[in-house]
């Protein structure tokens, strides 16, 4: 009799506890086959791979379509036009030059061209061809591959965790 009470009490408690418990799905183990697809290898050290987020990846696509011909030493078609120009255009990963320029300045020089910003007229304006959003993506890509790496100015320190 006594044991039956105790058993019932125990069972009820256990049931109540169990039903309240969350049932977690088995989390999928990290799949070795799955690796990031949007990446850029460092231009001087191919072993060093930079992962790109969505915005940077869009910038990479635009860069290799429009800018690579003058702002890189190797292009998809072989020889670069860069060495052919005076003044020599900056390499896109040239952090020493580009890290000190603000996003607004780079946005302007792409949209308005070199002559509007007091630089060489050889840099044509792309403001009527690329949208402001596309230019922002290009800047994001520039920042991602900069060597030495780019440090955004005055980023608010973030100690928040998700929980």
């Amino acid at each position, binding site marked *: 009799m006594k044991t039956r009470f105790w058993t019932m009490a125990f069972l009820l408690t256990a049931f109540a*506890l169990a039903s309240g418990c969350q049932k977690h799905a088995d989390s999928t183990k990290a*799949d070795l086959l799955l690796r990031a*697809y949007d990446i850029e290898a460092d231009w001087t050290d191919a072993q060093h791979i930079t992962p790109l987020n969505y915005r940077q990846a869009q910038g990479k696509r635009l860069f290799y*379509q429009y800018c690579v011909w003058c702002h890189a030493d190797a292009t998809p*078609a072989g020889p670069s036009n860069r060495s052919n120009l005076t003044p020599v255009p900056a390499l896109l990963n040239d952090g020493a030059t580009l890290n000190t320029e603000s996003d607004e300045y780079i946005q302007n020089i792409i949209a308005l061209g070199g002559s509007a910003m007091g630089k060489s007229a050889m840099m*044509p*304006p792309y403001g009527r061809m690329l949208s402001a959003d596309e230019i922002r993506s290009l800047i994001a890509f520039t920042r991602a591959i900069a060597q030495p790496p780019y440090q955004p100015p005055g980023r608010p320190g973030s100690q928040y965790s998700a929980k």
Partner: protein
Amino acid sequence: MSAEQMGKLTYRMRLVFAVSSIVFLAVLAISPFKDYRREWKQYKRSYLRFAQGRPDTKKLLADYNPNIDQIWLPGMNVVDRCTTCHQGITQATLADNAVPEPFRAHPPIPHNVRDWGCTVCHRGQGPATEVAEAHESTLAWEQPVLPTRFIQASCGTCHQADLPQTPQVTRGRQLLTKLNCQGCHRLPGIDRPQMLGPDLSSVGTKVSREWIYKWLKEPRTIVDKDGNATVNGYESQEEPRMPKFRLTDEELRALSAYLSTQKARPLPTYKIDARVVAAWNKNPELASQGELRFRQMFCSTCHSLAVTRAGETQLIGGDIGPELTKVGSKVKPDWLIAWLRDPQGYLPHTRMPRYGWSDEDLYKVTQYITTNLTDSDLLSNVPQLEPPSEPEIQLGRRLFLEKGCASCHVIEGVTPQKDFGPDLSALGAKNASDLEFSNAKIPHNLVSYIQAKLHDPVSVNPAARMPQYNWTASDLDAVTTALLTMKGPPPTSALQNLVVQRKEVDFQPRGAFGEVYDRYKCYTCHKFNGFGGDLAPDLSYEGSRAQRSWLVQFLKNPQTLRPTLTFRMPQFNMSEKDAAILADYITMVLQHPAANPAAVNVKQFTPAMVSLGKQLYEVKYQCQSCHTIGGTGGYVGPNLNNAGNWLTAAWIEAWLQNPQALVPDTIEPRRTFTGEEVQALTAYLMTLRAATNPPQKTADVTGSRRADQGVGR
């Protein structure tokens, strides 16, 4: 039990009741506690704390509400509660990578989350309110979140026409087309060419039984540990179209016996003029002369050869046609002559153009191919094969159907089995429980299944008939993405209305032009109104761009216009008449409405305009950064030395006003020239005329493989 006994509960019994009621109270208290501790409520509170610590608190909390947030779009089957935790998804100020998840803003895309929901693209369980249930598979909800590196698949589900923003889907679809996956599988939206693999009706006249045996056994030869494929021992950047079938020696003997007896169309006999042979036989330089001619005719535009540079051997050249390094040991010499003279006589749907050959050229080039492009060891690993026996031929015929050869290769009189492989048109929507994993040690989800199946078909199904392909990591991802786009018919009509269909394009003109156009296979490399290849400039509006006299000159003797591009237009040895037919049609039909010749009068251009134009070109706009005039200038745009003979004034004016209106993907930026500046620049460019017929350069085959990628026109 009597009433007295009922009233007299023992002390012990009272204790039991007391304890159990406390226990029950405690159990009841668990419920509100657990409710308070719910995962999504924790995220809600943590977002509140997070927002309060930021300078723009007010804006971040403008639409904060402590309850579950839900996007409900009945037409699209969307009930998404993702924004309950992902609360900053539309807050532009939370785009920074330093913002902790799940509060970070979504990167900017053309679709607004409130109009589309989340699961339309990301998959996962919209109604779930727990992290694990929302993102992973559960027994009830099987569709896990799509890993972001395949996210372009979701764009491709509706956008069946290729988008510039989704290069991975485009690449994947190209691979599905190129590797003839639609030979065995139903793949909606993947182009099915008229000819998948070569027609084998007369393959016995082309190659020996031994060569067929070797090819079937190891079409691709070697793969190194990095996954680089080698063709005939040379490293290749592309996967050869023919996959590897897992065949036994008996099957190899049977198939090679069957195929080597296929001689449906006898070879036309052609004797090269004896005087030509006699004259050249005295010349020891024969092969090098043939090599020069081979290069001058730009065979490397479509075919690659192994070239050793700085100790590294690589295949260099195009991949439209097969690789030819050892072709001299593969094909029979009589077949080669018949083929070069009339490729369509052997393969009706081949993209190889029909050249106008002189006996001398034909002899030189065939001698070069049969003596230089050879390898005496090519067939050294093939066992001694007897003349085919009747049982072998019969078995080979059966295997040809059973192994799925007939799905890609035509043999006259052989009817292929319909729908040889599974229908993949709804593969991307399958749940893990619909898939067979066999004993494969891989995570049970759709993405892993597709990748394992592509990587090694027998790993998930030991009885798989699918042959072995060899993918680079990025190609494997691209094909996986393209397959994930195929989710079958949209479940609701609202989703159906969102589908952006791929345009069916065709350009098969009739008449004299159509005949010449088809003979030279212009569409293999050039695009006409959306139809054709990507290798060479789009000619849809060539009639507005180029002057007729220039077109005739160019067709008869093509010259490069762009120094950075490897020039690849073959030397067709075109007759005056053919060139005139092409030029006439192009000038009259392939016109762009924006370039109006009547609106531009070249005679009105004055020397003052010309000098102003020259000044604008050189000083104000510095066009020389990309274009070459004289010996100086950039390599990006076309060389303008001969612009006055090449371009029409109407095209130059329309181009300067808005290049993208004429060629949408050109990289020349659209600028804000005034009307006067446009006229002056046009006047100046029209004065640029080079001497006609400059000396012809010899071909350089380097880099043509790389040059076809991403070069604007």
